[in-house]
């Protein structure tokens, strides 16, 4: 009888203990804490995804631009004659017969493309006079007027020379030196 009672007691104790074994109650607000962490994790995941997409887009754009810059053929600009071509340029464009023949027989050399800067220079309009003429300033006008007035009021150069020729210059006469001896030397000339 005691064995049966012990057996029942053990069964009941085991059942009650197993029921409570995992019947743990979490701290208040478990769901809120989990959700907050999940939201931050999802936000971080989303921002990482956008960052990767942005980086991939930038990389693709760089590759495309680099590819276009490398492969794009640069159109050769025709050489245009300057409105006032200098003599070497004129010769280069219309070489004499001998020079043209020599150029034709010369070995082909690598011709570098004219750079953009040179082409711009070639196409630029060059002024007739350098520096470009500009109207005179007030000071320059005053200086010019003074110079004209001086030129008109000053005597003519040849007339001045004639007057100078007419002036009589007295002749220069040179007399002989007459030096008298000292008194001591008169008495003893030997000394």
């Amino acid at each position, binding site marked *: 009888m005691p064995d049966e009672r*012990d057996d029942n*007691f*053990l*069964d*009941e*104790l*085991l*059942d*009650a*203990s*197993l*029921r*409570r*074994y*995992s*019947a*743990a109650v*979490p*701290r208040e607000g*478990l*769901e809120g*804490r*989990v*959700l907050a*962490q*999940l939201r931050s*994790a*999802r936000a971080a*995941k989303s921002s990482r995804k956008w960052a990767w997409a942005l980086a991939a887009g930038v990389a693709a754009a760089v590759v495309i631009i680099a590819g276009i810059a490398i492969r794009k053929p640069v159109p050769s600009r025709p050489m245009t004659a300057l409105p006032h071509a200098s003599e070497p340029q004129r010769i280069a464009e219309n070489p004499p017969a001998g020079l043209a023949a020599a150029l034709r027989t010369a070995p082909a050399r690598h011709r570098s493309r004219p750079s953009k800067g040179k082409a711009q220079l070639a196409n630029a309009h060059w002024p007739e006079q350098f520096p470009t003429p500009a109207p005179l300033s007030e000071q320059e006008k005053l200086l010019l007027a003074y110079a004209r007035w001086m030129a008109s009021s000053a005597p003519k150069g040849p007339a001045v020379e004639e007057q100078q020729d007419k002036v009589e210059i007295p002749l220069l006469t040179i007399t002989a030196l007459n030096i008298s001896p000292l008194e001591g030397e008169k008495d003893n000339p030997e000394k």
Partner: protein
Amino acid sequence: MHAPGIGTLSGLRTIADAAGEDLEAAVEQYARTVYRVAYSVLRNHHDAEDAVQETFLRLVRHQKGWAAVRDRRAWLARVAWRVALDRRRAAPQISLEDAAGAVRDLRAAGAGPDEIAEREQMSALLAKLVATLPEDLRNVVTLSTVEELTSPEIAEVLGVPEGSVRERLMRARGLLKEKLSRCLERNDAR
């Protein structure tokens, strides 16, 4: 009618919102079950809550397949089970002898089974006895203590047939009773 771009964007937002709502609903519905599964292994509130967080983070990572999961509670219980097993640490600090002595004293004092079962010493004693079971029996009895989980769900968590779960549960219970009896008799002899 929306422009194509706007329609696509709003469609994407709808999908994202739906996924987010689905996730939040899963947390509201299954967080406590997941917690108890983790607690059944870890025997510690703090570790169990960490395991819950880890379980739902894994759900976020595998969110694409979430819609196709048939038994979601069992799926989450399996993830929580694995997370908890990975995090399992040392056994509780109360020794087997101390726990058995305390239970013996309570019984001698006339305490009933329910009263004894509420005590921390009894919980520690049972944890130590469960830990001595063979692994297949230990897993079944541990998951069976999570009251929300049915036998088919335990079978899905462990990847075994439902019949095996019942059979192992019977064997595990018999072994536990035998060990408990021996434990209390040993203390009686002292």
